[in-house]
């Protein structure tokens, strides 16, 4: 009979427990020790996770007797454990797939990866360090879908201050369809304005709620509005750009 609780002279598990404890000790020592061996660096993550799984299995199998106890206990524990592992993987997957909007550094890295930009200095957004020619080349090559997506984002997030046609609103957002810009009309400057917002105005830092691609798409759309000079648009604010 394999049930751990038996009446009378139950046989001792002490030997098994001591062996299990010894293996757990050795594995923990290996885990910590491996951190200090530079050569192991490439294989470290899978090795560490593997050792943790073995330790986990040893404790539930030997100490908690899941190995040879009634199947109902295994079922009650392993099914939620599998669900927990799956939801963990799902969360990790989401964190990777969606460029998280929580950090400007991350956004810039994502954009850099997407289009090969040199990252701007995040501490001094007023002076964009992006090579404008590369940005312009990327803009010129951008396909229509990016602009369409940008238009949808503009309609959802920007029109309350910049008006549905981009003509701007008194006391709120400037006209996007003339060739005047308060914070610079270069693509890099415009991206920074969208990303970091303008302190003291209604313009929020959109990096807090948009992904890098979304900010890029809306940037392309806004850039495409330049020079359309819609009827009833706000008068020029800031300085006019030559182009």
């Amino acid at each position, binding site marked *: 009979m394999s049930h751990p*609780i038996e009446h009378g002279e139950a046989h001792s*598990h002490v030997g098994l427990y001591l062996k299990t404890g010894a293996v757990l000790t050795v594995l923990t020592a290996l885990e910590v020790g491996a*951190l200090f061996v530079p050569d192991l660096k490439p294989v470290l993550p899978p090795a560490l996770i593997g050792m943790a799984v073995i330790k986990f299995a040893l404790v539930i199998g030997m100490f908690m007797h899941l190995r040879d106890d009634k199947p109902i206990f295994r079922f009650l524990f392993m099914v939620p454990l599998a669900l*927990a592992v799956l*939801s*963990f993987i799902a969360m990790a997957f989401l964190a990777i797939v969606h460029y998280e909007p929580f950090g400007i550094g991350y956004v810039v890295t994502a954009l850099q990866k997407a289009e090969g930009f040199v990252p701007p200095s995040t501490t001094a957004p007023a002076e964009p360090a992006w090579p404008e020619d590369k940005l312009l080349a990327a803009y010129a090559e951008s396909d229509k879908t990016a602009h369409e997506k940008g238009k949808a984002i503009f309609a959802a997030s920007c029109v309350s201050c910049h008006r549905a046609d981009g003509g701007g609103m008194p006391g709120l957002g400037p006209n996007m369809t003339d060739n005047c810009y308060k914070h610079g009309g270069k693509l890099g400057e415009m991206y920074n304005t969208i990303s970091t917002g303008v302190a003291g105005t209604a313009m929020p830092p959109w990096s807090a709620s948009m992904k890098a691609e979304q900010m890029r798409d809306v940037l392309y759309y806004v850039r495409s509005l330049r020079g359309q000079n819609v009827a009833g648009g706000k008068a020029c604010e800031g300085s006019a750009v030559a182009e």
Partner: protein
Amino acid sequence: MSVHAQAIEEEGHGTGSLGVPNLKLAMWAFLGSECMFFGSLIGTYFFYHDHSLAGPLPKDVFSIGITSISTFLLLMSSLTMALGVDAMRRANAKRSRNFVWGTALLGLTFVGFQVFEFHHFVTTKGLTLATSLFGSSFYVMTGFHGAHVTVGVIWLSIVGWMIHRGHFGQEKAINVEVSGLYWHFVDIVWIVIFTFVYLLEFAK
């Protein structure tokens, strides 16, 4: 004697229609739900990993040396717990009491390490619950684990006392066993946190 009555006598405790002790069944069901609970907390920690805008980062605050010691103590407390349950199964109450109290003491030491760690992080490193996503997700995750260890320490202290006073004998070994299941669970949660949160941070 009916099979059912025999089962009750064998277990010395209420046995339900599934043929297993209700107390143990309840504990395993509870531990299953605890898997989801800690799975979410650890998942949340990783979801927010690398997204802190301010304050110290994991690498700035973690000390592998100190955490390795407290991890080892908690791991060994699982061994002493298993030995305590085993002793009670074989009707050695005094030995069982000693191992159960020893387990509680190791657990208390682990909690002490955690209190020291949190205090050090807050006062010296400037990491609080409200500092950053790292601070929030780290303290909530490890804090809930520490609270579980604390509950376990109290529980085991009482179990040890009950054995000491002769209230738990071999016929009530299941009471010791179930407290042991809870304790081992707290240990395996830490096995995951130690590897995924602490060690992997330095493996990159």
